[in-house]
């Protein structure tokens, strides 16, 4: 705790020391982010102290999670509100029948393992270019008893898309702007027949959301899903804290919006009957 506190104050000091005239507002916004992260981490510690690392709500409720998250927003993940905007879409895909999930950019496996648990007949192929992420994902799959259905790989190559055509596969893509290069139906025509949830990163790759909509509009029905405030039920003790704490407990740390695209091919022959 002392370390968290000290490092937050140190970062705020550095930000303000470097602030030149006319940049005060920007610096204050950065300092706010640092202080809010400190509070969010403190809240995550409290969640773990009271509830352990089992996810509390949402489709991944009951999943054994971890006590740190490389990408932050641990409290939101443990509470189960994390990216709750996608929950109804995951349920809709499930009701259509999914046999395979390909998670490109799986990180520590929140979706790869979460979906393997949620959908017991589904095989998950999880890819990440970061070897550390793959280690964490393997450990998470083991601790949730789904290691035999979570298959790990390093880099996903666009040529592999065609292997999943017609096989009731859901692609989950979160690759920090790399979607510009990977999700190109001119390069990889199999994409025209596949279904996706893509997190787009216009901050890293300006205009990418509209670019992808343009590329897939001829072949896919596309829903744009924007982040928003949360209504996930909070643990009772959080209601007893200040309003800011209950809000920060579900804060997702994103500095710019990353709209999701939920894309389904219009005429999709999904014929695979063997999971």
């Amino acid at each position, binding site marked *: *705790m*002392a370390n968290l*506190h*000290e490092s*937050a*104050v140190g970062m*705020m*000091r550095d930000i*303000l020391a470097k602030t030149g005239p006319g940049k*005060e*507002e920007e*610096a*204050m*916004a950065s*300092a*706010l*982010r640092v*202080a*809010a992260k*400190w*509070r969010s981490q*403190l809240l995550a510690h409290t969640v773990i102290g009271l509830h352990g690392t089992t996810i509390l709500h949402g489709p991944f409720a009951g999943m054994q999670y971890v006590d740190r998250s490389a990408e932050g927003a641990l409290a939101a993940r443990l509470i189960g509100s994390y990216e709750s905007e996608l929950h109804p879409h995951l349920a809709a895909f499930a009701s259509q029948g999914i046999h395979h999930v390909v998670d490109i950019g799986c990180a520590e496996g929140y979706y790869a393992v979460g979906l393997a648990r949620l959908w017991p007949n589904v095989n998950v192929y999880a890819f990440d270019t970061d070897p550390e992420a793959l280690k964490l994902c393997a450990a998470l799959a083991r601790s949730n008893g789904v290691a035999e259905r979570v298959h790990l790989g390093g880099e996903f190559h666009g040529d592999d898309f065609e292997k999943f055509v017609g096989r009731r596969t859901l692609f989950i893509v979160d690759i920090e702007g790399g979607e510009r290069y990977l999700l190109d139906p001119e390069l990889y025509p199999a994409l025209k027949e596949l279904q996706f949830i893509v997190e787009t990163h216009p901050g890293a790759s300006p205009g990418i959301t509209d670019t992808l909509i343009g590329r897939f509009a001829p072949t896919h029905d596309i829903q744009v899903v*924007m*982040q*928003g*405030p*949360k*209504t*996930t*039920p*909070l643990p009772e003790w959080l*209601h*007893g804290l*200040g*309003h*800011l704490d*209950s*809000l*920060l407990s*579900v*804060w*997702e*740390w*994103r*500095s*710019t*919006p990353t709209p999701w695209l939920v894309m389904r091919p219009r005429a999709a022959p999904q014929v695979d009957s063997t999971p």
Partner: protein
Amino acid sequence: MGLTDGVLARVRAYVNDPGQADDAEVLDTVLRGVARWRSQILANSLGAVYGRKVLGGPFAGMDYPANASEGALLPRLIGCYESELHPHLAALAQEGLDRIVDVGCAEGYYAVGLARLMPGATVHAFDIDPVARRDCALMAAANGVADRVLIGETFTGEDFARFAGARTLVFMDIEGHERILLDPDRWPALRSVKIVVETHPGPTFALTEEIAARFAASHTVIRVDQASKAPDLPPWMRSRSHLDQILATWEWRRYPTPWLVMRPKPAA
């Protein structure tokens, strides 16, 4: 840029001399100060984009020339402020009211908002703060309801008798003094009026329960707790960071202040 300079100076003073390491209370206070600054910056920007008016909720369209004298302006402009009360306000409006007694009216969010919402009702608004009274008058005039928003200074328990009857709503937010004022044994007229009160329990006293108990015999009592909310954000807010969006709904409350919605029981 006065708004930024003041907060910046305080944060600078803190980070350069943070005192005892690991004092979460102090850093939390700094965080809240900076978050309030951000909330104000966003409120000003929102006002510049859409005009200074309430954008959603039951008071949508209300012009808002005043600053929030108590709490956050941003959720007031968005229209999600204390949205837990919205269904109750709608029901009370539906039931029909002749007068609203707003005790602790601040700049008039409710006094003027309820006057707009209930064109047949007169609002008697009270605040001991002269700035609040001035702002409330400004708001009433800007919204064309000055003739139905009558502004007074101090409200005392003796005043309840003037407003007795079930077509009166007493709307009260007085930072803990409800403990003294909402006493039906001293002021029996309270047994005949409808009441919405924001309660301010302290660490050692359960004021919400205490007041609910005082009215249990004469009123049906509904307790309303703060809830998570996901309002439709104005398009300008949708492209902001998630932290800004979260701050859009932040009501600056440090501790929960549950409301009680109380209606006199029909005579047996």
